[in-house]
């Protein structure tokens, strides 16, 4: 990083990578989205509400949400074993728990909503990008939601707090903090950290990430508007 805060990929400290989201990219899924978040390329597909299999998982009082985050074997430099790793299982769980507060599951007892995420190419911050795509795919599936969920990471690289840590920065950096926010309700639904932060840095880092989440939200909203209000009608 240079003295005046220009990062290894030419971004400023508080700059996001380029993000583009396409809604409704899959024919079979009830809702879907494709996101490019820097070099991350991720697909999300949503099925349901539909019958639960295995049956004993069904909840008579509420629908359930299931989530699978999976990385393609060709998504990273070294081939990744296609079997789900412990990392992928943990990420699937935190993504599910980040989406759950937004989805109104009470309306669909005894059913399941399945969210499938496929990381085609990964480049740092894939869980946030995956979550952004999944939230849009849920909305595209027409599932009633309290809010969208927007995610973005912040971190500490070369003693400075930066927004949206890329792969290179993650490897060399001092801290990485993925955050997900329900922007209209002001609720943080995902927060993880690994690295070392002083208490005041922890605050700044979280606030930086939250600003990022709000910017991501605008992009998600625009993508949804583009599909559903093509002719400028509301």
């Amino acid at each position: 990083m240079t003295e005046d805060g220009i990062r290894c990929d030419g971004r400023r400290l508080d700059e996001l990578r380029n993000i583009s989201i396409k809604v409704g990219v899959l024919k079979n899924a009830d809702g879907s989205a494709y996101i490019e978040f820097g070099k991350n390329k991720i697909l999300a597909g949503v099925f349901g509400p539909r019958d639960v299999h295995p049956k004993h998982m069904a909840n008579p009082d509420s629908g359930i949400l299931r989530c699978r985050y999976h990385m393609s074997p060709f998504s990273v430099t070294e081939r990744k074993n296609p079997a789900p790793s412990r990392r992928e299982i943990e990420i699937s769980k935190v993504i599910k728990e980040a989406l759950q507060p937004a989805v109104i599951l009470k309306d669909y007892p005894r059913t399941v909503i399945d969210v499938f995420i496929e990381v085609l190419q990964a480049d740092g911050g894939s869980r946030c990008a995956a979550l952004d795509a999944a939230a849009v795919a849920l909305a595209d599936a027409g599932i009633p939601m309290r809010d969208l969920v927007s995610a973005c990471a912040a971190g500490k690289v070369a003693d400075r707090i930066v927004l949206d840590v890329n792969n290179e920065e993650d490897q060399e950096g001092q801290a990485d903090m993925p955050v997900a926010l329900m922007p209209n309700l002001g609720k943080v639904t995902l927060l993880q950290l690994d690295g070392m932060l002083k208490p005041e840095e922890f605050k700044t880092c979280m606030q930086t990430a939250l600003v990022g989440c709000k910017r991501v939200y605008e992009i998600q909203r625009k993508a949804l508007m583009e599909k559903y209000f093509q002719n400028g009608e509301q």
Partner: protein
Amino acid sequence: MNSQILDQLKREKILDLLKTGKRIDGRSLDEQRPLVIETGVIPKANGSARVKLGNTEIITGVKIQLDKPFPDLGDKGILICTAEILPLADPNAEPGPPNEEVIELARVVDRGIRETEMIDLHKLVLIEDKSVIGMFIDSSVIDSGGNLFDACSYASVAGILSCTVPKWEVKDDVPTLVEGVTSKPPIKTLPVSVTMARIGDYVIVDPTKDEESCMDARITITTNSEGNICAVQKGGSDGFTAEQLIQCAETALTVGRKIRKQFEQLM
């Protein structure tokens, strides 16, 4: 069905008490259950600990052996923390491959110890890129009474503090065990994990099993001796506000200090 109704009743009772500033077991909101640490309980392990945090009980064993470094980390020894919930620990636990809760538990415990840099991994290298010391810290939940994250983390830290590292000497590029010589592990800092649960508008420290069954969201924050925040994991099916999270970080630092004192007595 039955248990859902019970959980609902429990939640109402717990919330009613919280409104008066009390908890179901009489603790204050930011008070942990008593922590009892016993070390050296498994003499065949290089280090071990049995930890009780209220009704939760963990046994951790540390095994130390010669290993090859990870290909991209040739200048570092190996540190792996695992955790499992034994079938005898909980009526709902089942034998077989770990489910996502157990995987999360193990990974959060590992992250806390790794990211605080408790152990100086560079000092575990015998021959760079070829031969290193591996430390395996395996925790078993033997009785589950809530807050397994902190209990497993405390047991792992206690196990590490109690362990002795065998000595290997490098002769002709081959590490050879030196019988009867051991040393303390290279410890840099003491990680303390503090888990909090949000029930309604209340955030409580060290939730019991009953409190966990009706919590909205959970957060685990690990701090080091220097007062840095090194690992965080939010869980549960709802969120926190940014203000609540900043408050949680402060609580983790204050509560952590008391636990760290208990660890210092083991050194």
